[in-house]
């Protein structure tokens, strides 16, 4: 992308430099269906600011805790780090912060007045609750009606508990309700109350977010047997504590995620049973997410490809098998689902239980007495652009109207519907701008090569033998050190250097100091944000003050230092320590550890960005001594940082001495990678020395 020149005047007009980040997104954010600021929350997590991290996530994603467990994470799939080593484990970082903070640990943005129209929402799933939250934040009074006794939709009622414990769903539900979202459970719309009733009761709009509540079934002879289960009912029964009747030899018909969940649940019901899945597709076509399938196989689930069911074979009142036929193709030449069979290729598969998991469909019960019109094919009329049905004040969102997808997509759709309702109730034409800024492309091999390789933190999981027996969660989350290490793998894509072309003197310094060889100097320096690693080396060295970081406001560190010094008022001497936090714990970053008397520690992602001018400013702002705690050679996240840091400290010492101050008041300790104890001891010693001199 050809980008426009940026000048200091533009920056002055911008207010906050970080606004620049909105012009071009990191791919993780772009590909996230709710466009959560992934880079932002990963950086907060990397610095141990877990409360801020969850707030950034929740700004866009109401189902943060649920998604921390079950999201299909398109952010990770598109993470630029995949071309360096492995993508950042974004979902696991999210899981850690969401569950650590719980519902109480997240900021609630309830507007002071919620006096706008009342809106009724049918269904407390991800789509309905996300819409309700959005409306509540805008000052509306949403009421969510849910037929089940618990809220959360499929995540609460059908996603197996070993993947998603109910307490985790509850975190999101509680946080959403805290915004003034009224929730009434145990009410089935269409049965207990109709949509017309709701409109008559003073709700000015109704949003239907009823999801896909019924399993599709197959008209197989013998399928009325009590050991032939429909997957959704089967999973829901399990989640409500029932133990559906299953035998020792289970055949699950279907190759999607729901089929995997059903099969894995059967394994847990009877660890000794044989559980197999059978699907029309071949290995490549199988629709289940790769990891769902892998986990099922690890737990002993067998998969039979390219067979279609014909009939359930009964012997007396027992199921003894399933007759199957060969599949010649699943999709037509245009990729549409249109299976063809070879009826000469028949064979029987042994089994005593059958679970049908071939997809879900809508339960249209809610429409009873609504006055909504059905279009051709019995589907309700619906306009995807405005979310409206045949009545202008009845809206739709979520899987009831979208192809089956994921929790996060349902959240996005709910938010979009809320925007539509807001426009409608404000008397405007419903017109939603779905355009997005461009995103940063893949990392070039020349740059990828220079990025320090750091393996993805392993995700501890129970061994399959243990998993087979337990309905409890099998995938442990990261602990704090792992989450920090993982979040620090993020390359902060798109938060890097920008040249202010009016100031650039084309001096070539950036080109010379960049450890990744990114800057090109033509008329002025040109730094491509798509390539920049955001280390800040050039920013610290630029003699024209012509380079800024998109992700940081100019003068941030100086202000932060001044504030820290002001807090130490009355104490003498005042020592500021700039510590490279690339290896530090969250408590260190957050200042929640026992420090050294009289030393204010300020943590930095790396000392690459710390300039000699900033060192002088610390003294100006009242520091009696400054200690730079850096990483020794090669331990920093960016190459060449140790050497540059040494040179800057030496330069600043000379400058101090010239000004008549003691050069020894500035110390450099290269112990930042050695842990809290070592840093503390070194700081104590250095602080002692500086106050003695």
């Amino acid at each position: 992308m050809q980008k426009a020149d940026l000048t200091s005047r533009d920056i002055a007009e911008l207010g906050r430099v970080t606004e620049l980040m909105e012009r071009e997104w990191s791919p993780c954010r772009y590909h996230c269906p709710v466009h959560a600021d992934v880079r932002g929350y990963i950086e907060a997590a990397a610095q141990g600011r877990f409360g801020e991290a969850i707030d950034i996530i929740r700004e866009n994603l109401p189902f943060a805790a649920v998604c921390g467990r079950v999201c299909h994470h398109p952010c990770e799939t598109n993470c630029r780090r995949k071309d360096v080593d492995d993508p950042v484990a974004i979902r696991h970082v999210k899981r850690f912060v969401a569950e650590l903070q719980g519902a109480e640990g997240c900021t609630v943005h309830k507007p002071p007045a919620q006096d706008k129209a009342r809106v009724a929402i049918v269904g407390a799933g991800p789509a309905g609750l996300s819409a309700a939250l959005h409306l509540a934040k805008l000052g509306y009074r949403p009421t969510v009606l849910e037929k089940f006794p618990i809220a959360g939709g499929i995540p609460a009622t059908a996603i197996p508990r070993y993947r998603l414990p109910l307490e985790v769903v509850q975190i999101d539900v509680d946080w959403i309700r805290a915004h003034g979202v009224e929730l009434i459970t145990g009410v089935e719309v269409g049965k207990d109350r109709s949509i017309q009733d709701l409109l008559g009761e003073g709700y000015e709009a109704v949003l239907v977010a009823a999801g896909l509540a019924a399993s599709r079934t197959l008209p197989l002879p013998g399928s009325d047997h009590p050991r032939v289960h429909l997957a959704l009912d089967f999973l829901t029964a399990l989640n409500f504590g029932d133990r559906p009747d299953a035998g020792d030899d289970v055949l699950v018909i279907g190759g999607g995620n729901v089929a995997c969940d059903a099969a894995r649940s059967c394994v847990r019901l009877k660890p000794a049973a044989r559980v197999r899945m059978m699907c029309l597709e071949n290995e490549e076509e199988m629709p289940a997410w790769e990891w769902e399938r892998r986990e099922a196989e690890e737990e002993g689930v067998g998969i039979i490809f390219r067979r279609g069911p014909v009939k359930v074979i009964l012997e007396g009142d027992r199921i003894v098998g399933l007759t199957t036929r060969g599949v010649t193709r699943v999709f037509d030449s245009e990729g549409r689902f249109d299976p063809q069979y070879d009826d000469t290729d028949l064979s029987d598969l042994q089994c005593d239980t059958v679970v049908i998991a071939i997809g879900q469909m809508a339960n249209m019960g809610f429409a009873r007495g609504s006055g909504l019109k059905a279009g051709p094919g019995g589907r309700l009329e619906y306009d995807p652009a405005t979310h409206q049905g045949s009545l202008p004040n009845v809206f739709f969102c979520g899987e009831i109207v979208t192809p089956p997808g994921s929790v996060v997509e349902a959240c996005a759709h709910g938010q979009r519907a809320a925007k539509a309702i807001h426009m409608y109730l404000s008397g405007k034409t419903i017109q939603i701008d779905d355009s997005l800024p461009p995103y940063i492309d893949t990392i070039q091999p020349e740059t990828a090569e220079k990025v320090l390789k750091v393996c993805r933190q392993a995700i501890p999981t129970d061994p399959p033998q243990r998993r087979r027996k337990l309905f409890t969660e099998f995938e442990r989350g990261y602990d704090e050190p792992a989450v920090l290490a993982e979040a620090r793998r993020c390359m902060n894509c798109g938060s890097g250097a920008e040249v202010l072309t009016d100031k650039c003197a084309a001096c070539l310094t950036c080109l010379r100091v960049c450890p990744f060889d990114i800057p090109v100097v033509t008329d002025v320096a040109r730094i491509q944000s798509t390539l920049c690693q955001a280390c800040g080396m050039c920013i610290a060295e630029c003699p024209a003050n012509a380079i800024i970081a998109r992700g940081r406001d100019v003068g941030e560190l100086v202000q932060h230092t001044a504030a820290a010094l002001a807090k130490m008022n009355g104490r003498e001497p005042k020592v500021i320590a700039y510590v490279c936090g690339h290896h530090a714990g969250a408590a260190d970053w957050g200042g929640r550890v026992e420090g050294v008397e009289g030393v204010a520690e300020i943590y930095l992602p790396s000392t690459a960005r710390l300039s000699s001018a900033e060192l002088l400013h610390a003294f100006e702002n009242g520091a009696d001594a400054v200690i730079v705690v850096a990483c020794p050679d090669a331990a920093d996240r960016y190459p060449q940082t140790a050497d540059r840091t040494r040179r800057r400290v030496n330069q600043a010492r000379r400058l101090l001495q010239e000004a008549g101050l003691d050069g020894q008041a500035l110390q450099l300790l290269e112990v930042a990678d050695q842990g809290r104890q070592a840093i503390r001891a070194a700081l104590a010693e250095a602080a002692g020395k500086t106050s003695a001199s």
Partner: protein
Amino acid sequence: MIVAERKPFDEIVEMVAPYKKVLVLGCGSCVTVCLTGGERQAEILASQLRLAGRKKGLDLSVDFDCITRQCDREFTENLKFDPAEYDAVLSLACGVGVGFMSGVLPDTPVLPALNTTFYGAGVAEGVWEEYCHGCGDCVLAWTGGICPIARCSKSLINGACGGTNDGKCEVSQDMDCGWHLIYKRLQELGRLDELRKMRPPRDWSKNRSGGVRRLSREEMAEIAQESAE
């Protein structure tokens, strides 16, 4: 480009001693490139002065600013601070900038924070070397592109002196003999004959001895005159 180096700090302090409010003014051209007088250096010098002022108990307030070039009037419009509000401007430009700004700011003393040292080129990262003297009568055509005025310690025009010693200059063993360099370069180029040619005496009036030098580009200067009329 013009290369300059920072004056010793004590000398700067002495210069600004009579003033209470000082604006340190960087220049965004040559001296930014040679890392001595750009905005960052202005920021650093301002910081040093405030620190020194505090240490010495002086009543000194210092700000910094920077413009694209101190040798053209129009750029002063981009100043963020108004020099008229200061007792003195401490300029980090070369002598040209300092002198020119003195004219632009008639009521404010403009002080030099740099010593302007030479016309040079970057020979390695962070290293600059003298290449030209601005003598006004260029001889590089017959000296293999190596300037005898700048590169010979004595600015000789007729070849090496007796002090040349294994390619080094008698002034310092660390310095190449300029004429040795010229000879070798011409030898490489196969142009040693250039040295045998008779040349008219040099016109040293084009150097400093002719007084203040001036350039007037007729095509532009005329337009300027017309519009002034």
